[in-house]
């Protein structure tokens, strides 16, 4: 059977994918930029609009990183405002489960669900580092090993809070004088390793019951968490073969939780570049990659991987003839550089030697990946092929420009997908769960994920 494609839009982020040096690049903080991107996504009948989060500005060599876009609003606050200027588009907020408490997050997400008429989603992220913790009361209180146990218990607790109000708890019946229906609101009590709380939740259950849950972790633990608890995975596997492998791996984990493959949508983050011909698109893509990797950014990437100050080096010259320093590193708050830097450095050196690349050429090659490059027709075909061959259920598009970065995708590619009959011509229901084809979250399903 032909699968229907799901599409989402990511607000341009605070890494080098976002090109701020382009004359068409607008404000990353002005509400009009958010409005334009969200309304464009809604015009394209997208499933949802996605906002990322970072609770501490990134640092390089002990100072605030200044080469990428810096500065973002609070995501739930912006999404509530977007709820007022859109009518069908899903609104996804990234909210950290480490530096928040369930009672407050649950009521804010339930609020967004009410304010949007059932369009809220929550990307549950974790962080453990003391670096981010310095902005919060508890500091870096959590061990890395516990970030998923806390995230899982956090989500479970939030679900208990949402379920503590029956869907019909608010009677608001002046005749009988009952504002609340007797028994409609149940006190909660959660005693767990991370949370020991009790009382009465204060926000009525939202139209979707629970917001759509998004998960972006990629580790084995992250995949398991997604399989047990998420509705959508924000995946980084945007190449066809690795996408298929990831898709198979995650979907096979669902059965253990009594869930069907279609209960969890896998949406890789992707980019696109269009041209009237393939050659024109390729040329444009190369220009964008160079804009994404300025000489300064190129040097920063190598510094971050090598863990050394390389300010004397020429970005147009060869890689430094130095071994990486694998201790503390020079980059903080940049998840990209948290892995095995020694292995990355070895790979980069081999690639640079093989192709005779300068520092900047190398970084353009490795750090500015692009997914779909071509004519609208070939991009539409490629998107469809990825989905029909189970590399994805759809995509989260990350535009490189604010706020016009989705315009040509919506104008030129979406109509072709609609023509093929693989993407909705219009929304069929009011809620994000409707768009994603997910069942409404009912009270009776709540014990399923307690494992």
């Amino acid at each position, binding site marked *: 059977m032909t699968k229907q494609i799901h599409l989402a839009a990511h607000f341009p982020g605070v890494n080098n994918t976002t090109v701020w040096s382009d004359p068409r690049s607008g404000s990353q903080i002005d509400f009009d930029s958010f409005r334009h991107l969200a309304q464009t996504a809604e015009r394209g009948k997208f499933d949802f609009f996605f906002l990322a989060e970072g609770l501490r500005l990134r640092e390089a060599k002990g100072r605030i990183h200044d080469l990428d876009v810096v500065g973002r609003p609070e995501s739930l606050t912006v999404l509530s405002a977007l709820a*007022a200027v859109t009518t069908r588009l899903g609104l996804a907020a990234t909210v950290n489960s480490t530096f928040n408490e369930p009672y407050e997050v649950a009521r804010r997400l339930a*609020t967004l669900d009410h304010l949007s008429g059932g369009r809220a989603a929550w990307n549950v992220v974790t962080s453990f580092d003391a670096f981010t913790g310095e*902005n919060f009361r508890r500091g870096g209180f959590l061990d890395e090993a516990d970030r998923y146990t806390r995230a899982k218990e956090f989500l479970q607790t939030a679900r208990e809070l949402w379920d503590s109000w029956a869907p019909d708890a*608010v009677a608001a019946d*002046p005749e009988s004088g009952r504002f609340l229906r007797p028994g409609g609101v149940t006190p909660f009590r959660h005693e767990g390793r991370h949370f020991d709380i009790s*009382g009465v939740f204060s926000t009525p259950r939202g139209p979707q019951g629970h917001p759509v849950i998004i998960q972006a972790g990629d580790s084995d633990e992250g995949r398991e968490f997604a399989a047990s608890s998420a509705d959508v995975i924000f995946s980084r596997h945007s190449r066809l073969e690795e996408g298929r492998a990831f898709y198979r791996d995650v979907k096979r984990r669902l059965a253990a939780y009594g869930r069907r493959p279609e209960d969890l949508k896998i949406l890789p983050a992707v980019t696109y570049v269009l041209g009237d011909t393939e050659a024109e698109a390729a040329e444009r893509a190369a220009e964008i990659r160079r804009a994404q990797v300025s000489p300064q950014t190129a040097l920063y990437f190598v510094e971050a991987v090598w863990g050394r100050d390389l300010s004397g080096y020429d970005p147009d010259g060869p890689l430094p003839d130095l071994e990486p320093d694998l201790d503390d590193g020079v980059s903080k708050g940049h998840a990209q550089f948290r892995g095995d830097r020694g292995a990355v450095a070895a790979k980069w050196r081999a690639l640079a030697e093989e192709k005779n690349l300068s520092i900047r050429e190398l970084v353009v090659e490795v750090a500015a990946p692009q997914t779909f490059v071509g004519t609208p027709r070939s991009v539409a075909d490629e998107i469809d092929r990825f989905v029909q061959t189970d590399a994805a259920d759809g995509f989260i598009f990350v535009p490189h420009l604010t706020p016009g970065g989705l315009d040509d995708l919506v104008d030129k590619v979406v109509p072709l997908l609609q023509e093929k009959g693989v993407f909705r011509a219009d929304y069929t229901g009011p809620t994000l769960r409707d768009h994603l084809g997910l069942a409404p979250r009912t009270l009776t399903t709540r014990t399923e994920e307690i494992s």
Partner: protein
Amino acid sequence: MTLSLAVALDGAGWHPAAWRSGSARPGRLFTPGYWAELVTEAERGLLDFVTFEDALGLQSTHLNELDGRLDQVRGRLDAVLIASAVAPLTSRIGLVPTTSTTHTEPFHVAIGIASLDHISRGRAGWRPRLSPRPDQARHFGRRVLPPLDLSDDPDPASTSSVADLFGEAADAVEVVRRLWDSWEDDAEIRDVATGRFIDRERLHYIDFRGEWFSVRGPSITPRSPQGQPLVTSLAHDTLPYEFAARSSDVVYVTPRDRADAAAIVGRVREAEAAVGRPGAPLKIFGDLVVFLDADGAAGRKARLDELDGGELVSDAHVFTGTPEGLAGLLLDWREAGLDGFRLRPGELPHDLTAITRGLVPELRARNAFRAAYETADLRGRLGLPRPGSRYAKVS
């Protein structure tokens, strides 16, 4: 000179039986349209700003625990998010949500209110509020608070807990204000030649260290249109007056009559002196619960009292009467030194509409209220200048 006039929005109005009256829309309390209609009505009346009540627990007539009542409005949406949802639908009116200084992270509040200021183009305010209730502390499980004791001879545990919570609240506001200043206005430079998006010399660590928490900064949100959104707080006694004098731009007070208003203004000024408040004196707003009709407001209020099973209890003076009568009272009390008033409509939308369509024209006829908004931003409307960042180097 124009009077400053704000309206406090909460549920179906400030009478607990308001939701049962003819004009109420109780089935819509948790929908965006309900709030949008109220705030656009307030903006049509050219009011200075609206406040949104909030708490991290269910409403209750009891001080320390829930009351189990099903016949009054229970449940709320998050106030910051309501304010934000209304922002794109309005253009002039100020939006002032409430948050907790006890349980909510100051960092989250700072970026939330700054974001509201960006979205509304300079119309954001904030009402920090303590959460002293022990039942609400159990929603977080991070600390145990003793029962509140408001008697004449209070339990020392209650007194010292409340004093600590005020100290912590002052620290929370200090952190929020520093975070709002942690980006200088011109920090974003987009300098293609050097590849730098920001000038990091114009971003600042706030390095706050207090008795209750430490916060490093800087904010993740660029400095907002007003720089410092308007901070407002409600106060009934010396400790909260001093908190307001340290932390707020506007203080809401609850005088019973004109003489009481004069006495309270005196105490607020003493509190300002006691804490050594720098800069502009507090704007003092009198809070009043209002029931307004051309005829029969007292009867309407009495019927609501009867439905609720008891007379309305309020910390603020309850006015029942005509818009003309209220206009006279406000102008009289203003002589005691009040800068403005925050009216709490007894019943929504009835008493809000009576304010915008009855009271406002009456005040205007007496030359005491604006005929059009003078400024787009909220601080400017109250005569408060836009401050530069405290961290900006004076050149």
